[in-house]
């Protein structure tokens, strides 16, 4: 299951995670964000224990969105060992997302 991350929990949940973390910057009003949600849930199930999925609501977490220069949503980051490994912008199919993220 994806975890909802805030400015307070970002460090612990994402930067200090033992496994790679896919961070989804999203918002309720954004249709493509709502459509990518089930894709990420499927990935969370398939990669259970190997990859973590975290969600950041840009509406509530403007600081994080700003810090990571999110300028179009959905924006999806892959974090490994506290660093950004990859960035994907926009909605895509599960297989395309996995390929582009390189997980």
């Amino acid at each position, binding site marked *: 299951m994806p975890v909802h991350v805030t400015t307070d929990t970002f460090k612990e949940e994402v930067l200090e995670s033992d496994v790679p973390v896919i961070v989804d910057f999203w*918002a309720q009003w954004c249709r493509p*964000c709502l459509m990518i949600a089930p894709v990420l849930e499927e990935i969370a199930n398939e990669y259970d224990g190997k990859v973590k999925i975290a969600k950041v609501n840009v509406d509530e977490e403007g600081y994080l969105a700003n810090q990571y220069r999110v300028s*179009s949503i959905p924006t999806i980051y892959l974090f490994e060992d506290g660093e950004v490994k990859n960035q994907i912008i926009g909605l895509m199919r599960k297989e395309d997302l996995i390929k582009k993220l390189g997980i």
Partner: protein
Amino acid sequence: MHDVIVIGGGPAGASAAIYLQRSKLDVLLIMKDYGTLEKTQHIDNYWAFEDTMDGKELVEQGIAQAKRLGVLVKQEEVLNIENFNDFSVKTNKGEHHAKAVLLATGQTKPNLRVKGFREYTGKGISFCAICDGFIYRNKKIAVIGNRAFMSEELETLQNFTDDITVFTNGLDLEVEVDQPVNTEKITEIKGNDVVEKIVTENGEYKVDAIFIAMGTPSANDFALRIGAFTKNNNILVDDNFMTNVDGLFAAGDCIGGLLQIVKAASDGAHAAIAMNKYVRSLKK
């Protein structure tokens, strides 16, 4: 409410509408022009026409045939599609509702071919005001476009900032706007990590974000706003020509593959058969 709204009057759209009509569904076909075929004057490879056919004439005949068989056809420009319980299709003349929608709007053409366009797409260049406008609250925004589609995006963006400039990229402005307008041709998008400037033939303009709404919305623009998967500018559909959005189907050039009349017509027929099943399953 209609059973199906078909958007696009080319071989995919008209064929689908005819099949749907024959399945006794209530179909509305909305088209704005003759699409790619308008510029295709010599068609020699389509079955059963002894003489060379003109593309526009073929489209006209296809629409005349659809009308003769009872399809309702409206010449309007679709500006937005929304789906909550049903589909609401907003055009330049009004709003129409249906249980299912077929996108048959032809191939999505690349948008703004200038230096920096690809580089800053998603990094300050956005194609969807409703998705990304919020991120630029009280910032300096440029909207590129010159028609109703641009006005539509402008309306959304006004909720987020007062600092908006319209860039027509050298085209005549065809709608009225309250914002400042720049009609110079755009030559480059500059930035540093994210968009910082629009460069035109006569100057440079600082911006925080650029929203693209050029010409009329493409199938990709609709797909983006409604959350349908795309790949390489094509809409992705399953074996039934349905997108990942329930009730939203696509056929013809907008789904890629062979960009030929014969394939578009075939897509239209296949999509119509699947849509008929889909709409009837809703009625149960």
